[in-house]
């Protein structure tokens, strides 16, 4: 359970941590788009350099970033093998009825790299930005949607609560798991059915506690007169600093470079 890095903040003192969340959101978006623009090797080379620089600047240990990839290993394997075997072109070798092609291999390679970069790119955002900053940034960036009736504040609030609860619930899961293991529960061995059954002593208390927490939170928010986003001010309003301007310039340069490289 502790392996979930997606959506988890890694505290460190780096330029990336200090950037305005809006800058980081924009940066992530630009990076993701650039990955889809890039077709050939040069584009990916630039993206790799950019990503490496960002990782180094973030001061988050590489092992921590890579851990987020565990979640997509299966997806990665499936998409890569589909690409290798299901693309038409010059065959390299055959595996029974399956035929691997050079074009497929090429495609699979880029596909895999793109998928990995996508995940790393977005985990860097969440690793260097606290959930609160992240939703503040989202709320502000998407504020224009309010005009067409999208409840931006409410959505942002729900997101921040959901994100805030991930570590609490993982901790809770850990605790309940240990308590049941102390009573001899076995969460590891056995087939699928046995494993699913073994989850009951974990899930029932977990759900009960999640509902209890949700109830408590709602009560606490109401007790402090929370009434939605209308007229609500911020304790720490977001301000762009000089470093944000520089970051935007670097981003623009990167993006132009990627377009040229394509």
């Amino acid at each position, binding site marked *: 359970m502790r392996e979930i890095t997606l959506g988890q903040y890694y505290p460190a003192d780096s330029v990336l941590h200090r950037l305005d969340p809006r800058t980081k959101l924009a940066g992530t978006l630009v990076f993701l788009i650039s990955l889809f623009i890039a077709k050939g090797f040069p584009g990916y080379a630039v993206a790799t350099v950019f990503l490496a620089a960002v990782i180094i600047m973030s001061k988050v*240990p590489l092992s921590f970033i890579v851990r987020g990839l565990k979640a997509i290993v299966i997806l990665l394997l499936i998409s890569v093998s589909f690409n290798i075997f299901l693309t038409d072109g010059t065959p390299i070798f055959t595996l029974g009825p399956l035929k691997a092609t050079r074009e497929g291999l090429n495609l699979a390679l880029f596909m895999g790299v793109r998928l990995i970069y996508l995940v790393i790119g977005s985990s860097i955002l969440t690793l260097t930005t606290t959930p609160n900053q992240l939703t503040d940034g989202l709320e502000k960036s998407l504020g224009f949607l309010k005009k067409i009736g999208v409840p931006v504040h409410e959505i942002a609030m729900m997101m921040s609560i959901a994100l805030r609860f991930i570590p609490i619930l993982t901790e809770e899961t850990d*605790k309940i798991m240990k*308590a049941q*293991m102390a*009573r001899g*529960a076995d969460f590891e061995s056995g087939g699928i059915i046995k494993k699913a059954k073994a989850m009951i002593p974990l899930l029932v*208390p977990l759900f*009960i506690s999640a509902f209890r927490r949700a109830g408590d939170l709602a009560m606490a928010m109401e007790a402090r007169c929370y009434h939605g986003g209308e007229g609500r001010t911020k304790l720490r309003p977001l301000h762009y600093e000089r470093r944000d301007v520089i970051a935007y310039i670097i981003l623009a340069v990167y993006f132009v470079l990627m377009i040229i490289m394509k």
Partner: protein
Amino acid sequence: MCLHLCLCTLHESLTIMIEAKNLTHVYNEGTAMESHAFEDVSFRIGRGEFIGVIGHTGSGKSTLIQHLNGLLKPTGGTVYYDGEDIFKKGYDLRKLRSKVGMVFQYPEYQLFEETVLRDVMFGPMNMGAAEEEAKEAAKRALTLAGVGEEFWEHSPFELSGGQKRRVAIAGVLSMDPEVLVLDEPAAGLDPAGREDILNTVAALGKKKNITILLVSHSMDDVAQYADRIMVLSKGKLVFFDTPEEVFSHVEELEEIGLSAPQITYLMRDLAAAGLPVDVNANTVEEARETILKALGKK
């Protein structure tokens, strides 16, 4: 200094049940969230002893006790149970967990079954007992823990906090453990409930010669029940000795954010005021004795 104290105060006649050697635990080793829960802790606990574990919030008590049944793996050192290294390859940890019963902080949140009886049967069933056998064990445990028969077929979620706590304790007792580790079993209960639970536990220990480790924030409780007291501070074992010995170090205890039992302070004040009382009395009973004696009423 401490290691010295710990080893020499263990009663010669007791067989050693649990031994910790240079136990160290670091959470999230190698990341920015790295936190040293405790370092280089060694001690021995004999069969049938009642051990009190005290320490300031965050001193590593909960982390330490979770090593005793192998729920947490140490980052250094090891634990011996009955002379066997529990972290060596192939050691049957599940069996160990039936022998070293552990009641966590706020154990009522782990209840999950439809009825109280079924919930208490969970442990024995996991240990491979047959349905009937488990039922018998559960009934015995519920009686021991003081849960009345009228509640056995209730849903555990309909009970009060204190009753849930008892059911949770019964859930561990039903496995017939040789060692019972309780992490603040009385936290959040009313005074009567507190005393009731602690008395039940202490009586159990005596009756079945169970070794008990009680983590508590109440100096008065540990003074009253414990044979020896383990004092943790910032991840170090600073004292492990009899209540008299530990509570004679009032100043050191206060320095690490703890205190002595209220009775100890009273005795000290009385002695300072000239009444010839025994300043090592730290339970109400002992205090009563020595005050009466000092007043010449006995």
